[in-house]
Each structure stands twice: as structure tokens, then as C-alpha cells.
């Protein structure tokens, strides 16, 4: 059916609510990419089999990722009149135990992680409550609120969360100018990394001469270590769609593109499903909600080029050309896709739009800091206890994110640095942990917000190696159009490789700085101008590590192969033989129960023994 009025929308909303909280017991399995990677397909199969075996009359549904990827695969059970119970780290055996309990009428608490008292509160069930979980209770989930809660393939469930109400509101009661004014007032800034005010961009596109105008959603999430766009598209694609339709209406566009990385097949699938469902419902296509407004969307898959996250390179790739950026003296809001005015925003930016319209500018501006409003999603990964996606209000400190939400560094190791902003960002040491995280503060200290990757590093991470890693990345991804980037990055990478191999010279530091500053001044696009940031920030905060590599030929983190040797600590070694079993070189010998020994002449420093040892008896020096 096509939705034409508020009444229709309300009707679907009720239908959707019944889908989320049906009258029967409902079992929901997380089926996002991260869930699947941990084995959720087997979990789903086990659920289906056990349900059949027990002859249970239940609804089996799929959802996406709730953000706490570490506890996956997850499954939740909602019984009518009971809280939603989330089970963690499942396997088929655990599943059959949980469902067998269910068929006996009892609630399994053994594998439960927490309960969500959304509709009903029940203190008699002895499971930690959602609000008492450290990972969740410090977060401010507004964009991610329904990720992992609703079925991403169901438009009804999205509408049940007040989805498409904002669209109805603007199409019936707001002029395009009013929408742009509201978005400008809300202080929404681009979440893709630049932090450009969305309202101003929309306005420029609207006023720019030229027809047709395009809106584009940038889901070419190339920053290594960031995956919020994937999670949003997999978990709540309609929220992104709705934002884009509202934006298109405000800007006066009737055509749009979603540019998704091809590395995210599930995100591509879910956004395509969302588009066809929205078309069926009359929320996309011709005469949207009976208002006479037309807007159509097309999904374009990327092809594995980081630079295509840059707007003009992205346009080139959509047009079927090689993804090379162009100089920015003409803004893409004026001449973008096919030289027409184009408004490009990131996935997360678009997903914020319906919330601002629905809940009001005041509500939104109350969240965040002076210059950065709302929330930001970070992917908190690396050497951290709780890994996953976290959404915090702008202005939360790094310490809050890393220690309160992230639970600190594993194995009691020492925090060394946190890397934000992907290859364009920088590494910040401990002294900056208390700065509030927003667009401006991070830039001040030499890093940047970027798209939201936050990689935590401990004392087993070598900062020179990290700088080398980013340049290795950029060396591959540089499109080759401008000289400073094409040649400069290669030279910097060569110098860093020398330093990591222990053949660095003291004057290398000066050359590195020199090249970095040249890149900053002279490269054509943001990929190049920011390419030196990882080097500059590590040089600034971890200069001693560089000198340690150059002068002492040492890598204290034990990462740079040429500078370390492996040995077995005979006092700590329990003689279990695990290391010898895994050693690809047969370099480790010994007798069970006695300390093993390592033959350095055979050792290729692969690190397998270090990984295998449970007693920290393998030493890397």
C-alpha cells in the first residue's frame, strides 16, 4: 500500500509495534557483518532447529549490531510481559540450552548478559539491567538507538520508532527554507570528517544555479578502523533514507545517490531493500506521501579505492571515471556530480536529520558543546577491553570514552596513545586524555575528529610502526594525480621503513618534517594535505621513540622485526610445549615439563610463540 496521510502512517506504526513486541515470544538474532563473523549464522540455524524440535510457537526475527561487537554473536528473547533479555557470546550448544529452558517455561540466566526494561520492568529476573552496564550507561544513544533493536529489513518496525514522521511533518507543514533554517540552527556539522555545517552546505546547493540538483550519501567509509556507517546502513538504513529525502526536499533535488563501499555487501543489500520497501510505501519515488514531491535514489557500489571517500573523487567514480579528485576552487555544492549542484553528506549526518526535525532544534542543541552539537559515534577498537561502536554527546572526554565506556586497557597494560581521524588524524598521548572530544578541540591538539575511528594503543604498539602503517596505506591509496602526494608519501614511507629496519639516520627526522610540511601546503586534496598528520603527531608526541630506533637500534614495543629478538624466559616457562607445536621453523625445542629453548639462528620472528604462550614466558626485546 502507499502511505498518503497521517492516518496511514499511524496505522503502519501500530503494525510495526506489534512486529517489535508481538503477542508471541520473539527470538531475535543479530545478523550484522560482525555478528556473522563470530558465527551468528550457526546460531540462527541452531535456533531454528531447537525451536522445531521443541515444537515452540515463536517468532524468529533478525536484527543488526547493538554496538557491543565483542559480546557477539547475540540473540535476544522477548516474552510477552517480560523484559527483553540479551544473550551473549553464543554458540549452537548454548542456544539449545537457552531454548530448552524457554520451552520449559523458565528463563535461562546463565548465558544472559543484560535485560532491557523497555516495556516491562521485572526485578525478579536475576540479570544485570541494561542501564547498569558500563559500556552502555555512559553513552548517549540517539542515532544508534534502534540499531540492533529493530529488524533493518522491516519498514514497519522503523515507522514504529516514529520513522518517516519527520518526513511527513516537513512535506505537509514546512517550507524548504524553514527546514534549512532549522538544520542551520541545530548546528549539525558533517560527520564524515570535515565538520562543515550541514545547513550552510544545503543552502549553497539550493541557491546554486543549475538543474537538476543531486543529493549524495557518502558511505564510502574508507578510514581503516571506522565502521559506524556500515553499522548504521546494516542496522537502520531507513533513518539514512529519511534524512536524504528530507534533505532532497529542502534543497530541491529529485535525484540522489548512495555510494557504498563494495567491502560492505550486507550494507549494500540492506539499503537496497530499504529503498524498494520505501518505494512500495510511497515514501520514495514519485509523489511522495501524496505531496507531489518526487525523489529517486540509486545505490552505487565503490570498488576499493580509499580516495573515493573524497567528494570530487566520489563524483568522478559515479560518473564512470577514475576516482581522482579535482582542485576545490569550485565547491561541489555549486558544481559537483556532472557539474551540477550537489549536496554530499555522510551516512551519520543524514541519520541525524530526522531526529532534529522530529524532536526539535532545542532538544538537539542541548546536546554537545558550543561549537559541536549533538552526538558522535566512535568505533572504539584496538587495545581496549570493551570494543564496539559507542555514541557519546560531543564534549565527552577521551578518558570517559576509553576508561568508563571502554573499560581500559586489557591485561593491565599501559595506555600509550589513541589514534583518531583515520589516516588524516593523529595519535594523542596520555596527557590529552582529559580534553573534550569535539571537532575543534581535537584539531587544536593536532589530531582530528575524522569519521570516528578511535584506535587505542598500548605499550606493545610501536608509534614509528604506526606512522609507517598509515603511510603504507596512503602510498597504496594515493591516486597519483598530484606530485607532492604521489612522490612525497613514497619517500616518507621509505624513510620510515629505514628507521623501522634500524638503518635510519638522525637527519631523517628533519627530512620527514620537511616533506610533511610540503605535503600540507601543496597537495591537491585532503587525502594529501593531511597525509603527513600521522607522522607529524607521532613526531611531536613520541619523538623519543624515533630516536630510540635511530640511535639505540631498539624498538621498545617489540614490533619492528629487525630490531627485536625473541627468547624464552626459563623461569616463567612451564614447559607446556604450545610454542614449539606452533613454531613454523621448528626453532623451539625442549622436553615437556621443562623450560624450552629457542634457537635464534632458525627464528624468523613471526611472533607465533608469543601469541601461543599463556604464561608470558616468551620475551621480545
Amino acid at each position, binding site marked *: 500500500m502507499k502511505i498518503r496521510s497521517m492516518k496511514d502512517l499511524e496505522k503502519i506504526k501500530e503494525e510495526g509495534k506489534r512486529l517489535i513486541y508481538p503477542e508471541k515470544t520473539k527470538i531475535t538474532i543479530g545478523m550484522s*557483518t*560482525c555478528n*556473522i*563473523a*563470530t558465527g551468528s549464522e550457526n546460531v540462527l540455524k541452531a535456533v531454528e532447529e531447537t525451536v522445531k524440535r521443541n515444537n515452540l510457537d515463536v517468532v524468529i526475527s533478525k536484527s543488526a549490531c547493538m554496538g557491543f*561487537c*565483542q559480546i*557477539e554473536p547475540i540473540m535476544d528473547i522477548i516474552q510477552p510481559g517480560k523484559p527483553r533479555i540479551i544473550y551473549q557470546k553464543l554458540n549452537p550448544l548454548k542456544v539449545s540450552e537457552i531454548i530448552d529452558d524457554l520451552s520449559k517455561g523458565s528463563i535461562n540466566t546463565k548465558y544472559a548478559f543484560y535485560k532491557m526494561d523497555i516495556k516491562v520492568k521485572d526485578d525478579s529476573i536475576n540479570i544485570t539491567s541494561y542501564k547498569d552496564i558500563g559500556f552502555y550507561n555512559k553513552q548517549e544513544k540517539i542515532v544508534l538507538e534502534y540499531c540492533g533493536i529493530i529488524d533493518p529489513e522491516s519498514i514497519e518496525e522503523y515507522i514504529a520508532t516514529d520513522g518517516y514522521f519527520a518526513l511527513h511533518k516537513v512535506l505537509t507543514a514546512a517550507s524548504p527554507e524553514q527546514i534549512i533554517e532549522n538544520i542551520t540552527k541545530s548546528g549539525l556539522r558533517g560527520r564524515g570528517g570535515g565538520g562543515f555545517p550541514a545547513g550552510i552546505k544545503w543552502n549553497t546547493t539550493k541557491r546554486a544555479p543549475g538543474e537538476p540538483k543531486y543529493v549524495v550519501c557518502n558511505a564510502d*567509509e*574508507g*578510514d*581503516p*578502523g*571506522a*565502521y559506524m556507517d*556500515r*553499522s548504521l546502513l546494516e542496522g537502520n538504513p531507513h533513518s539514512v533514507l529519511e534524512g536524504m529525502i528530507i534533505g532532497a526536499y529542502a534543497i530541491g533535488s529529485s535525484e540522489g545517490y548512495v555510494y557504498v*563501499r*563494495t*567491502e560492505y555487501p550486507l550494507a549494500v543489500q540492506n539499503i537496497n531493500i530499504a529503498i524498494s520497501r520505501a518505494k512500495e510505501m510511497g515514501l520514495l519515488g514519485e509523489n511522495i506521501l501524496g505531496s507531489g514531491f518526487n525523489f529517486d535514489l540509486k545505490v*552505487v*557500489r565503490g*570498488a*576499493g*579505492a*580509499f580516495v573515493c571517500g573524497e567528494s570530487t573523487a566520489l563524483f568522478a*567514480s*559515479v*560518473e*564512470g*571515471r*577514475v*576516482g581522482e579528485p579535482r582542485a576545490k576552487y569550485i565547491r561541489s555544492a555549486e558544481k559537483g556530480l556532472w557539474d551540477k549542484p550537489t549536496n554530499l553528506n555522510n551516512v551519520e549526518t543524514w541519520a541525524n536529520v530526522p531526529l532534529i526535525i522530529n524532536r526539535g532544534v532545542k532538544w538537539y542543541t542541548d546536546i554537545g558543546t558550543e561549537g559541536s552539537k549533538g552526538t558522535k559515534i566512535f*568505533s572504539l*577498537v*584496538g*587495545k581496549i577491553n570493551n*570494543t*564496539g*561502536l559507542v555514541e557519546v554527546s560531543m564534549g565527552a572526554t577521551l578518558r570517559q570514552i576509553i576508561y568508563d565506556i571502554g573499560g581500559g586497557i586489557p591485561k593491565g597494560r599501559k595506555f600509550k596513545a589513541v*589514534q583518531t581521524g583515520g589516516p588524516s588524524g593523529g595519535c594523542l598521548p596520555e596527557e590529552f586524555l582529559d580534553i573534550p572530544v569535539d571537532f575543534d578541540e581535537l584539531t587544536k591538539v593536532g589530531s582530528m575528529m575524522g569519521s570516528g*575511528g578511535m*584506535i587505542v*594503543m598500548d605499550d606493545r*604498539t610501536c608509534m614509528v610502526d*604506526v606512522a609507517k*602503517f*598509515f603511510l603504507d*596505506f596512503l602510498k*597504496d*591509496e594515493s*591516486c597519483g*594525480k598530484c606530485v607532492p602526494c604521489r612522490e612525497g608519501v613514497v619517500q616518507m614511507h621509505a624513510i620510515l621503513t629505514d628507521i623501522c629496519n634500524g638503518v635510519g639516520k638522525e637527519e631523517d627526522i628533519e627530512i620527514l618534517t620537511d616533506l610533511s610540511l610540503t605535503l600540507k601546503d601543496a597537495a591537491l586534496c585532503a587525502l594529501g594535505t593531511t597525509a603527513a598528520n600521522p607522522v607529524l603527531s607521532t613526531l611531536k608526541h613520541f619523538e623519543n621513540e624515533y630516536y630510540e630506533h635511530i640511535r639505540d637500534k631498539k624498538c621498545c614495543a617489540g614490533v619492528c622485526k629487525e630490531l627485536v629478538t625473541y627468547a624464552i624466559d626459563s623461569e616463567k616457562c612451564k614447559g607446556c610445549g604450545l610454542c614449539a607445536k*606452533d613454531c*613454523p621453523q621448528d626453532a623451539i625445542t625442549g622436553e615437556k615439563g621443562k623450560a624450552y629453548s629457542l634457537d635464534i639462528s632458525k627464528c624468523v620472528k*613471526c*611472533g*607465533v610463540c608469543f*601469541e*601461543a604462550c599463556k604464561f608470558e614466558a616468551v620475551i621480545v626485546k
Partner: protein
Amino acid sequence: MSRIGVFICWCGANISYMVDCPKVAKEMYRHPNVIFSTDYRYMCSDPGRDLIMNSIKEYNLDRVVVASCSPRMHEKTFRSFSQAGGVNWYMCEMANIRDQCSWCHSNYDKATQKAIDLVLMAIAKVNKNKPLTKMKAPVTNRAMVVGGGITGIQAAIDLGIAGYETVLVEKTPSIGGKMAMLDKTFPTLDCSACILTPKMVEVAQNENVTMHTYSEIEEVGGYIGNFEVKVRKKARSIDEDECTGCGLCASNCLVKNIAYVDKKRRAIELEPADLEKINNIIKNYTASADNLLAIMQDIQAEYRYIPQDILRYVAERLNIPAAQAYNIATFFSIFSLTPKGENVVNVCLGTACHVKGAPMIMDALERELGIKDGETTKDLKYTLQSVRCLGCCALAPVITVNGVAHGNLKSGDIAGILKQYA
């Protein structure tokens, strides 16, 4: 039977540091026609000259081979030495064992062996040489350049400036050639037109150069210095003095651009099964440039690589230059021009995976599969490649095999995972 003398030069240390010159000289005696062979420190010096002259007389040589530097440097020198000894100017040949051997190699034994081969080749050549005498013949000091591409244009300009009357013949209606079709030039990415157009003007304005565009060579006769060429200037039915080259007639022409179609281009012949597959893929899209990426992705998925003929076929169907399709195929990392393995192993090298030990996972895979990053096993069973972030950062380090992700890995898990796909 010919009587050949061989002279191996040390060039000081230039040759002798990498080539065993006495050994090379000795080896030459194995050739039945070599009567005398020796080595010396500087063959181009006065004692060297005496050595060559005296040996010619002493052993009654009729051919000489000097193995030393390049002919550009000393061919004249050694030929004059030989002539002074009584050997015809053209019966002396050189083997370049310096620039092409000692300077560019680092293995003494192998370089010596190569020098022996080079000298033997020169001996084989000189053996077939015949004595010649120099003579003068009348030459017409007029040049013709065939083809008005960038090379032809530059050649005509140079000849013109040098004061020679030059005729430039070009078969298409305009000079400029392939370079006029390019946007940028390799490797400096300089603007192509900025190089070409000034030269086009220069050649047209050069008083010594006569241009014949839209003309073809019909017949070439005569010999060096006295060629006779017949050029057919094709009918254009325009007044060349009045024409400004505005192009309006071309854009209004019913059979436009005919002159630019290269009819000799190899026709694309696909197997019927391939043709059907590709047509079915293209059918899902509008056949235009903005769908190129999507179409090529489907082809990559179907074939695990993009076969060359198919790439050209797609370009033709979408009405874009094959170069553009090739450009896309080589720019984006998911496309491959060689077949990928049945199982594609992607190793995530994102930041989170890197700090959590992805390089060790890559090492382990390289060891297990016996191939390096980016390679395919010989049996086309596995392809190993690195990708930049699969978006599963919380489960780092991660790999995917045929799109199925495996997370939280240690090097020890690799063998077990590969076994599932064996």
C-alpha cells in the same frame, strides 16, 4: 678462409674489474677463423694502435674485431688503426663489453661469459663482411616526413629549422595524431594540448615545411638520397585558403568522423556463451558510462577477473574509449586483469587489525599458502590479498574467505580455517 684478429681492451679497470679479459682473449681461439687474439690495457692508445697494426702485418689478418667500449666512442678510431695496418675500413667490427657488460653486471663469472658471447657475435658478423669503398653520390636535399603525429611534427620542425625543404604528409584531415586525443601525458601528467598545440602552429608556420593533410602515400620508389614518392591528396571540396578549421562542416556532416575510425582495429570476437553472459549483465543497466563501474563489478564477480576482450566489448557497448575502461580496471583495487583463485582470502590491514597483529596473520597465510600478498596459487585455488578495513574492527584481526568473515584470529587458527576450503 678469413683471417680474423681479436683485440680485447681492459679500458683500464672499467672492463677488467668485472671481466676476465685474458680469459676472453684465450677463448676466442676456439673459433676456427681466429688467427690471433690478445688483450691489452688501453687499445685506443698509441701502443694499442701499434699492437693492432703490427699484428695485422705479422699474422696477415684480413678482419679485425675490437672488444672494448661503444662504437659511438671508438669505432672510427679502431677502423682507422685497421686501415693503417692494411685492412679495409669496413672489415673492422666492435663488441661493446663495457657499457653492455662490465658496467651493468655484478657477477664476475657471468659477466666474463657474456663478454665471450658478445665477442663471438662480433666475430660472426665480421666474418660475413665484405670490403667496401667510399664514393660520393648526388643527393636531393629535401625531406619527407610521413605522419603528422607529435613525432612527425617535431621532425618536420627540426628539419625546417635546419634549412631543409620538408614535406609533411598526414592521412587524417588534421595533424596532431594520438596526442591530440590525450588529456595528460605520462609520467608527469603535463597537459597534453599545452605541448602539442604550439608545435602544430609552429610546423604550419615554418616556411620550409609544406603540409599535405588528408593525403596518403601511394608509391615509394628510388633509393636513399633520391627517393621518388607519389602522394594522393584526397578530395575535400573545400577552398583551403578560405578554411579556418572551425569544424562546423564536420559537426553537420552526415557521415561524420569517418576519417577517424581506425578500420584496421581487431574486431572483438567473444565466445557465444560469454557474449550471452555479458549481454545479460549489461541488460540490467542503462548502457552508459555511469554504469561502467557496476557492470565491471558484475563481470569481476562472474569471471573472478576481467578478460581483455570482454573489457573492450563493454567499452564498445557503452560507447566509451577502451582506455577509459582499462583505466578503471587498473585504478580500483577490486578489479583484476588476471584470474583470481577459487577462494579469495582477504586479510584486513586496517588500523585496528594492524595494532592487533594483522601482519602476523598475513605472515602465517603467506607461509601456509606459499604465496605472497596479491598472488594466486598456481592451481588457482587461493588468492591472497590485503584489504584496507573490512569494518569489523571490534573483532580484529579479521580475514574474510569468499566474503565470510573470521574474527579474533591468531596465527595458529589459519591452518584450520584454510582446511575448510581445501
